[in-house]
């Protein structure tokens, strides 16, 4: 079944001759309402300036900048190895894609190839991070519709995965594990058994989440048919990841441009059809199950011996010839990429982080938010799965 958004639901506001909205705040018909930056229904440090007419949103504007730390500028004054520990800080809930994309871009421009065993461990880390990110999302999505308990369950399950990260990398949030040339270490002893226990627990939690959230009449009533992304908007608005896959577009970098060891793994991208909040949540739930399967496949197949690091130059004098490249990966929110430009010196000339939220949280959100009820704004924002630090870097 497909749900189509009715663009003429609202009679207001009328448009002026130049096409802009005719909003006269003094008329008393409209009201400005700020959702965020301090609001339980906001996805991180951003805010949406809403213009409402009664209960209905007639215009929304995304405001970012509350978490601008200037990473791209900072990196221009740091050596290639000094950039490595700061890139992960661009995205808190799933930092590993920054490490992987940055490392792969440096390796490509420097002509270094990371060892096969390191590539397996990199892929394992990325999939573990994806599971974490999805668990966090499911809690947030349920919470935006008033089901606080789901967030407590998924936070518990995520915490178990953070334990696995801790024993593998030594850190729970910022792992700083995937560095140019390879990875820092191999798997600890007994890791497979403990990971299997964690995966079983996460599967069990996801079963409970399915029963309580996805079969819940209130969640269905509020999420089905709301926040519809027309498949025709996918390309013009740069929509990627689960947001595109829930609209029936089989866009997954892991399949389209396979990287690391994905060609050796057996999986199919999860596709939805209805392109509403419910469909996006369901795509992400099923994608978590795919990631769990991928982790099991990798632990069964990965080599246990072999080098973990390629030979890299002395990091204090590491200069990379002039060049430019773009490395992308499929993170839990869509296409994540690093555009790296080098000029032959010991510092990057330019690093540009392409986070999926850049397009989802600004142009797409501002379009989808029109004609929504105020109460559904939080649900829509969470369903786009945006992280503001990727926008302002």
């Amino acid at each position, binding site marked *: 079944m497909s749900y189509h958004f009715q663009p003429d639901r609202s009679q207001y506001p009328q448009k002026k001759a130049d096409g802009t909205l005719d909003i006269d705040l003094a008329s008393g018909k409209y009201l400005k309402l700020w959702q965020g930056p301090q609001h339980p229904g906001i996805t991180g440090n951003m805010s949406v300036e809403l213009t409402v007419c009664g209960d209905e949103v007639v215009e929304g504007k995304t405001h*970012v*900048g509350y978490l*601008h730390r*200037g990473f*791209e*500028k*900072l990196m*221009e*004054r*740091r*050596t290639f190895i*000094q950039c490595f520990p700061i890139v992960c800080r661009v995205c808190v809930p799933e930092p590993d894609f920054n490490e992987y994309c940055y490392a792969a871009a440096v390796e*490509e421009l420097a002509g270094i190839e990371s060892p096969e065993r390191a590539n397996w461990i990199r892929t394992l880390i990325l999939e573990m991070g994806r599971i974490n990110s999805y668990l966090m999302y499911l809690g947030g999505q349920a919470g935006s519709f008033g089901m606080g308990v789901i967030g407590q369950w998924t936070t518990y399950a995520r915490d178990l995965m953070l334990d696995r990260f801790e024993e593998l990398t030594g850190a729970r949030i910022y792992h700083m594990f995937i560095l140019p040339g390879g990875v820092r270490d191999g798997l600890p002893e007994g890791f497979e058994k403990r990971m299997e226990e964690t995966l079983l627990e996460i599967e069990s939690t996801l079963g409970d989440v399915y029963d309580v959230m996805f079969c819940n009449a209130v969640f269905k009533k509020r999420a089905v048919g709301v926040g519809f992304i027309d498949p025709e908007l996918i*390309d*013009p*608005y*740069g929509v*990627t990841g689960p947001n595109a896959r829930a609209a029936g577009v089989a*866009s997954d970098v892991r399949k*389209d*441009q396979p990287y690391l060891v994905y060609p050796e793994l057996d999986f199919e991208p999860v596709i939805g059809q209805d392109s509403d909040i419910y469909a996006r949540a369901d795509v992400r739930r099923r994608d978590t199950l795919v990631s769990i399967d991928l982790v099991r496949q990798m632990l069964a197949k990965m080599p246990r011996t072999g080098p973990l690091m390629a030979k890299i130059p002395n990091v*204090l004098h590491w200069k990379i010839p002039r*060049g*430019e*490249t*773009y490395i*992308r990966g499929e993170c839990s929110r869509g*296409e994540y*990429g690093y*555009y790296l*430009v080098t000029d032959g010196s010991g510092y990057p*000339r*330019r690093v*540009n982080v*392409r986070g999926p939220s*850049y*397009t989802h949280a*600004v*142009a*797409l959100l501002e*379009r989808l938010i029109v004609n929504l009820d105020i109460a559904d704004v939080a649900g829509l924002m969470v369903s786009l799965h945006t992280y503001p630090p990727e926008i*302002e870097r």
Partner: protein
Amino acid sequence: MQKLYAKLNKLFPLGELTCQRENLAFVTVSREHLRSVLLHLRDLEGFRHLVLLTAVDWIEEGAFQLTYLLSDRTEGRDIGLRVMLSREDAAMETIHDIWPTAATYQRELREMFGIDFPDSPGVNEEFVLEGWVDIPPNRRDFDTKKFAEENFGQRPGRETRDPANHMKEQLYPDGA
């Protein structure tokens, strides 16, 4: 990529092709031909996804490089179009009518590099910065350290070290 380049080169004057990988190449396009090349690639060659639009400051050469990275998701290939602009008169035609999401990139470039995109929606509105009066901060001639020292005080009693010297001292304590 070579085939595509040969085809494009017949229609538009292009710079030399840099094949970075089998499925990624960069090519320089003149400012006046960019729009036609973008439309050609989008409508006839399947490059429908604008991956990013960003700038690189080549201050020594007095130029900004704009990079339009397009992706053909069906074939799994990418092409980066480079447009060189003079740093003195940094302005470029907007492409928000081709990709609406480009307006966000252009607004950020206006703020961070001072490159103007006349007629792009909201291009002069603040994006990340608030009340910024200095030169655009992502330009190479903006001195981050000086700005930080002038605007933010050091915490009393804090010892600072030059990272390069500190690493050298740690790695080679005998000064070798």
